[in-house]
């Protein structure tokens, strides 16, 4: 083969590289200089390989004619799409040692850096067979020892190239360190047949050792393999069949077509994937900063997926006996089985069932859900999710993905749940009775959640209603909530027993107007708690009196102790009232009525009667919460003298 034909063969073999003109000068001497004027390779390695092989081929061509022991080749400048090379020097010794050195600058780089590529032995044991042993590519952040073998054979109406690249203990990194590998050992085999305009190829990649970080993915272990075949025809890459095997995860079969680098068609079929291993490897990095970014998974999954003309057309996701546990403890579902089909063209029915679970520590019972999936919307007329001895019953559920974000609405009813069990599950003080709720149409759209009516709860033998509920970005940055809360006829006995506050008998009405939470913390409200109107038994224990007074600051409790009233353990009252206007982290307090010294919180009546006064008009909200916590935790013990 003539030297120049060798160059052309190699240049064509490496995709994206074209040699427009090759000048060979001064062939008579020991120094052979050559300039690559217009080599536009897509990669530095391609350019180096071209030079190496050109060098090799030229030597083979001229050796018989000239007595040459070593050849050096220089090029001032090589321009590539990815960057430039300058001061390129190639040295070829007749014992087969080849080295290539130069300075490279990637397109985005500021500075030139030294790079080298060499082989201790570049050989051609027979015609059409080249071998590079102990090769090494070195540059800033790249150490890539390799060996390379290429065989070219003639087949009917074309050429066949078989290449084998072995890399051993290679490491590389980009400048920012966001794409990097360490101690990588892998072998890549390529077999290509070129006939007419078409290339038929087969490839096999075996990743044997080393770790790889490719933002946002991290592969700590090797053991992954890819075997694929297909064709390349005028910018169209066809993968007829690819078998991808991921260590510990499972395997997938894939076929597809890419047109000028753009994904066109894909069929993916993965059976029996181990989701415990799949999640940290591929799913978690893609779910960063979502509610699903810290999960522990168990179980198996299978996925079939079709993409046509660059668009997702259909998929089928099955989970088998999967367990999902949120590591932040927000939710857990055990033994999930799903069949979730989706098609761009036809409506489908999805099924999801789980055996048990927790949502915010609330135990969930077995549930089975069916829903209609129609392109980008999911609807179901009824969802029944058992919770303890009751259930959350959802109706008119509809969700749609429009313009890249989700919009949904639903109605809900809480089928009565026993409070003793619920409060125990939530780690709250034991509460008696049952809780029930009716939730009107709730709509979520554009990051805002709005309730179209009042949410009604039954708790502490009374009624609580939440009106004007409006949440902004409840799941996003800086969640905000606005609402008005109205409480009527709550049983004070139940409440005070629940929170170990000291017994008060009676009924309580309350209003929390203009409630505003930011990041789920109160920033503003106008609260008013007071005795419900009507006739009922009104008694307050000495301990409750002390606790109320200690909420307002020290002093008042001592006065009670010293008074004659200490002989009684409970007192009659006429009215209880407490108001707090929260602004700028300060609660401005008042009571039933004002007196010259302060305000009345508990107004006594009959015998024995007691009046509890508040003197502090402004208390820091966090101070107040801390005092309330001390009181309900029982650190403020009643003193009976």
């Amino acid at each position, binding site marked *: 083969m003539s030297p120049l034909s060798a160059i052309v063969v190699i240049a064509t073999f490496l995709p994206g590289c074209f040699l427009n003109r090759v000048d060979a000068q001064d062939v008579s001497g020991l120094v052979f200089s050559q300039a690559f004027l217009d080599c536009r390779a897509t990669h530095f390695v391609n350019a180096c390989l071209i030079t190496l092989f050109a060098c090799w081929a030229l030597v083979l061509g001229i050796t018989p004619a000239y007595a040459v022991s070593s050849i050096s080749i220089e090029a001032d400048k090589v321009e590539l799409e990815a960057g430039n090379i300058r001061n390129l020097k190639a040295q070829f010794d007749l014992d087969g040692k080849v080295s290539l050195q130069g300075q490279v600058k990637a397109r985005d780089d500021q500075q030139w850096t030294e790079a080298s590529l060499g082989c201790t032995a570049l050989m051609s044991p027979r015609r059409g067979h080249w071998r590079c042993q102990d090769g090494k590519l070195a540059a800033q952040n790249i150490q890539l020892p390799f060996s390379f073998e290429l065989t070219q054979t003639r087949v009917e109406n074309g050429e066949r190239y078989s290449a084998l690249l072995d890399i051993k203990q290679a490491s590389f990194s980009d400048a*920012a360190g966001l794409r*990097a590998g360490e101690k990588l050992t892998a072998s890549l085999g390529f077999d290509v047949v070129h006939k007419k305009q078409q290339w038929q190829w087969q490839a096999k990649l075996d990743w044997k050792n080393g770790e790889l*970080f490719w933002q*946002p993915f991290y592969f700590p272990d090797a053991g992954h393999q890819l075997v694929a075949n297909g064709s390349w025809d005028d910018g169209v890459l066809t993968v007829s069949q690819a078998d991808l095997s991921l260590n510990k995860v499972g395997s997938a079969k894939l076929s597809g077509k890419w047109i000028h680098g753009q994904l066109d068609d894909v069929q993916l079929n993965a059976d029996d994937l181990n989701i415990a291993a799949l999640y940290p490897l591929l799913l978690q990095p893609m779910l*960063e*900063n979502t509610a699903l970014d810290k999960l522990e998974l168990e179980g198996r999954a299978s996925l079939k997926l079709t993409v046509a003309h660059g668009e997702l057309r259909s998929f089928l996701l099955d989970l088998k006996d999967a367990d999902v546990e949120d590591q932040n403890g927000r939710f857990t579902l055990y033994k999930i089985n799903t069949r979730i089909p989706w098609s761009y063209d036809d409506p489908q029915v999805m099924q999801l069932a789980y055996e048990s679970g927790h949502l915010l520590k609330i135990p969930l019972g077995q549930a089975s859900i069916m829903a209609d999936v129609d392109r980008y919307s999911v609807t179901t007329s009824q969802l029944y999710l058992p919770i303890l001895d009751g259930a959350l019953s959802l109706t008119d559920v509809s969700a749609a993905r429009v313009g890249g974000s989700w919009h949904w609405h639903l109605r809900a009813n809480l089928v009565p749940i026993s409070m003793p069990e619920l409060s125990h599950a939530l780690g709250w003080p034991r509460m008696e009775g049952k809780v029930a709720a009716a939730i009107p149409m709730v709509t979520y759209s554009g990051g805002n959640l709005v309730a179209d009516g009042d949410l009604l709860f039954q708790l502490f033998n009374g009624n609580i209603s939440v009106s004007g509920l409006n949440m902004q970005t409840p799941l996003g940055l800086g969640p905000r909530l606005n609402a008005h809360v109205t409480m009527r006829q709550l049983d004070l006995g139940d409440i005070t027993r629940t929170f170990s506050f000291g017994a008060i008998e009676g009924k309580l009405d309350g209003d929390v107007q203009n409630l505003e939470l*930011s990041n789920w*913390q*109160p*920033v503003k409200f106008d609260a008013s708690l007071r005795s419900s109107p009507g006739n009922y038994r009104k008694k307050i224990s000495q301990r409750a009196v002390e606790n109320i007074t200690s909420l307002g600051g020290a002093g008042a409790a001592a006065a009670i102790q010293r008074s004659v009233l200490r002989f009684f353990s409970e007192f009659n009252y006429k009215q209880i009232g407490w108001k707090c206007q929260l602004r700028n982290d300060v609660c401005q307090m008042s009571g039933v009525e004002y007196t010259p010294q302060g305000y009345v919180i508990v107004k006594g009546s009959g015998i024995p009667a007691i009046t509890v006064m508040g003197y502090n008009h402004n208390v820091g909200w966090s101070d107040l919460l801390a005092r309330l916590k001390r009181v309900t935790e029982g650190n403020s013990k009643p003193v009976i003298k």
Partner: protein
Amino acid sequence: MRKFLACSMLLSLLVAAPLVQAAADLEINTPAISSIKNTMQSRHGQLAGFYASGAVGFTRDGLVAVRDANAVPLAQRQNLNTLVAAENSDRNALYKEIASGNGHPEWEAEVRSTFAQRWIQKAQGGWYYQDGSGWVKK
């Protein structure tokens, strides 16, 4: 001790950042702001090492960014990204909360740029920050 100093320095910055404009109170404290500051404080211990090694630096818009992940072992780079994302999420929320705590959500940009300057002023020697030309070592 260095970590402690850095931590307290950054916290004092949060508390003592100067007024963005005559009317804006950057020291405003709401429960939401203090809860954001608490999570930032607890995260700072993990980030300080990355600031010192140059893996993470301060950006011009009051956030942090991965500057050179090469300073961090491969196995920790995902964690690095997660920390940076969480820190930025808190910083964005903090600027938003301070602006709306002042009753002027539209002041967020000014709050942010004032904080950006102060983060950089208070950064320790050897830490990196961005100026108009790129990364600068303090």
